[in-house]
């Protein structure tokens, strides 16, 4: 039985009707049209479905949509500011941090979480933090390079 639910997504309050068993990733994609959140493995391994729940990275295939009520959800669509790419997104473009791009939204949102706790992570810290984000193109080195560049850009912007 679908039930009414209100979610706060990318700063907007959105009303939808979902069954209690609906996973957050399906609510975001199928009900709210936010298809930037990808489904990769659907078994909480790959991290393609990563979104932020109250600023913390979570796998939206392993959260019920109803559990996200009254939390602030951020998807990849919510990162850019008035059409202007987020500094992390720009760093990924400039440092070739993506090939096919399928894993990229998840990688970037995990990076947002990482850099919010550790503004200047070393490469070991970055690799440990991104362990739950698989890139089937295996472009990990340039992903790490992009995170390093993003951390520099964000610190530069902050100072």
């Amino acid at each position: 039985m679908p039930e009414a639910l209100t979610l706060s997504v990318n700063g907007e309050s959105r009303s939808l009707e979902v069954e209690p068993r609906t996973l957050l990733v399906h609510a975001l994609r199928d009900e709210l049209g936010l298809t930037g959140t990808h489904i990769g493995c659907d078994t909480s391994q790959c991290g393609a479905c990563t979104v932020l729940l109250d600023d913390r990275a979570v796998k939206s295939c392993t959260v019920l949509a109803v559990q996200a009520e009254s939390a602030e959800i951020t998807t990849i669509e919510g990162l850019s500011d008035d059409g202007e790419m987020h500094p992390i997104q720009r760093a990924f473009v400039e440092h070739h941090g993506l090939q096919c791009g399928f894993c990229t939204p998840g990688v970037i949102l995990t990076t947002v979480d990482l850099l919010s706790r550790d503004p200047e992570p070393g490469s070991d810290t970055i690799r440990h933090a991104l362990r739950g984000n698989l890139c089937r193109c295996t472009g990990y080195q340039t992903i790490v390079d992009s995170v390093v560049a993003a951390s520099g850009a964000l610190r530069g912007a902050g100072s």
Partner: protein
Amino acid sequence: MIPAPVRYARAADVHDALVLLAEPDARPLAGGQSLLPVMKLRIVRPSLVVDISRLDLRGVHIHNGELHLGALTTWDDLLRVEELRRPALSAITECAAAIGDLQVRNRGTVGGSIVHADPASDIPAVLLALRAAVKLRSPNGDRVIPLANFLVGPFTTALGAQELVTGIVLPIPEQGSGSAYVSLEHPASGFAVAGAAVLVGPSEERVIALTGLTGTAFVLPEGVDPARALESTEIFGDRFASTAYRRRLAVVLVERALERAARRAEEDR
């Protein structure tokens, strides 16, 4: 993959959760990092999930020489608290840092992991070595039972009907103690092929606990050479690691954990 149809209720407090759990096929849902995957596979099909994730059972504190971990404390919480930054409790943070990945550590809880009782999960070994007990609440009242008695077998615990794990409690080891957790993870699942947790006391006395080898994590008998004790342990094998390999691996992991824990104990003297 989506779970079978299920109803959902958010508990307002622990009492409310226990009332809701009166339904025979109801399951408590915290971070969901163990329960939701098995619900998606439809191995578990509760009639009702009782969302306890917002209850006041989260956090770490020290009281009367005991460490209390709220059942809803996440792995990520454990990595941030000051109370655990001491040599005797290093095994806890060492273990928490290696669990799953950042996203899983953000949501997964200590209580959820204990209740799920996966034979390959890491934390039971650490908590057994630290002589932890499980705090439980049901309409009949509260009880505290040693973790070793709580873990009954693979995915099986002593949790009663309409009973909730509210936390973990363990005695803070005395000054001059050190602990460590060393595991070999399966590269894809991240679960332990085998893991060894060790607590070394101020006069070299030691507690050794292992996970990944048998139906549930267990403590090695005291005063027996670990390699000898493992010879007579019935260890399972699978296509990733045979019985003989797991046994040899366990001996090596115990040695490494002992070495690290002893070094930490020394630093604390």
